[in-house]
């Protein structure tokens, strides 16, 4: 995991998704954070964050629909 030689490489979609997911919970390991900070570009965070936000809202909505139906 600690492939520092890759620090200029672009983050994969999965890595962005993971970072966004953990940010919603508010927990993250220090190593992962360092890696995120090195590899994820700001626009990736923004786009990932927006998609994550939409998914978050939709899943609460689904839950609410299930509860009320």
């Amino acid at each position: 995991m600690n492939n520092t030689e890759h620090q200029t490489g672009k983050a994969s979609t999965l890595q962005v998704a993971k970072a966004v997911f953990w940010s919603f919970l508010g927990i993250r390991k220090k190593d992962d954070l360092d890696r995120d900070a090195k590899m994820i570009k700001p626009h990736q965070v923004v786009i990932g964050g927006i998609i994550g936000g939409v998914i978050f809202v939709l899943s609460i909505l689904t839950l609410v629909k299930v509860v009320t139906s």
Partner: protein
Amino acid sequence: MAVVQDVHGHHDHHPSGIMRWVMTTNHKDIGTLYLWFSFAMFLVGGFLAMGIRAELFMPGIQILEPELFNSFTTLHGLIMVFGAIMPAFVGLANWQVPMMIGAPDMAFARMNNWSFWLLPVAGMLLISSFFVPGGAAAGGWTFYPPLSAQGGLGVDMMIFAIHILGASSIMGAINIITTILNMRAPGMTLMKMPMFVWTWLITAYLLVLVMPVLAGTVTMLLTDRHFGTSFFNAAGGGDPVLFQHIFWFFGHPEVYIMILPAFGIVSEIVPTFSRKPLFGYASMVYATASIAILSCIVWAHHMFTAGMPTVGQLFFMYATMLIAVPTGVKVFNWTATMWRGSLTFETPMLFAIGFIFLFVIGGFSGVICAIVPIDIQVQDTYYVIAHFHYVLVSGALFAIFGGVYYWLPKWCGRMYDVKLANMHFWLSMIFFNVAFFVQHFLGLAGMPRRIPDYSLQFADFNMISSIGAFGFGLSQILFLYIVIKCIRSGEKAADKPWEGANTLEWTLPSPAPYHSFETPPVIK
């Protein structure tokens, strides 16, 4: 780097006397101005609070006519939120952010001056509105229409003041963002930034996001009042509930704007006096970001009684309760930082621990308010008042006190009277709880907020609350005395008065030099 050059150009030619303060572009001078301004506003808002509690000391109407009472509650809220708490945090940011990231000054030094000097104008507008025909705004600090559509000149002055305050906040936020992103010392990567800087960075983004919404809201109110529009006027096809939606779309993130920098301060103080690094730094950064994002999708928990489909109620209830998760992560991390640390209880640490303890109570009562069936009972009662004073007074304000006691030796090169400062903490702590804990019971028993008179069964608890409030108010005069005594005749403070501290500002001499880091420090 042109910015840095500019700062150096002005070196040592700054005017003296009053003009030093009017013309200053120095982050420390401006920080000082912000802090004194917010303390002055704190006294004004406190005076209004004393008036409110004096009227509520006994049932019946003794001191304030109902209309004036309503103006007191309205202006108390507005002045405390926009005049005291927010400028105090901006003042702390002005002083600390450049020092903590190893920069010589803020990025936009002149804009910094302007964003401060707008504040006294807005403050004067709010205060003087008491003396215009019709009196000050009286529709609550949330100024819902139709009440705010009806008031007189006082409401227009309030609208204007909010416009100005919003402009000032946006400029301050842009300045802070630019400073943090561009002026860090070499080696100070984002992930090495102190938590106070991180929380302010995220707060500044929140400010830029929601202050324009507030500006839009008050502008719509203004055009409804004077230019014949009907955004919020049902008779003209508008909808007063629309106001509540856009107000709270601003309002809920706003409450987090007032608490995230407080989280930052506590995250500096707790590690210092536990002599351990902050537990879960990465988690703290993510939790702060998470709280900021979530805070934008929970606003309608303030409107459960305004009429909403069940689906909407449940959505906002679940979303609000989820916010408690990252907040809980933070509390866990502070506690874990103290766990098995070698703790000492200097004044800043006392305030930080007081913060953690009481903020948790406020957080819990918040979650209780978020439960729809309960909120329908307690909405607009003293329970809500108790909730938000636990998060704003023992939360935001205690953190500000903690921050001042933490950094004051660095600012003025002198140490304050520790005995008196500890006394200030204990008096504040005790009287705060006397004043506000009983309000939970009043609220549960059904006492409505914003009412100058009440039924007899509420009498005892109100008297206790008023006594606590007077005590709390008086204790703050002690704070003023402590600070003045420190500036005038405190003992010389060491460069690093707290042995456990290790952020950059402690590498500077005390008092900190006029320009913080002329040559950027190198971070390992």
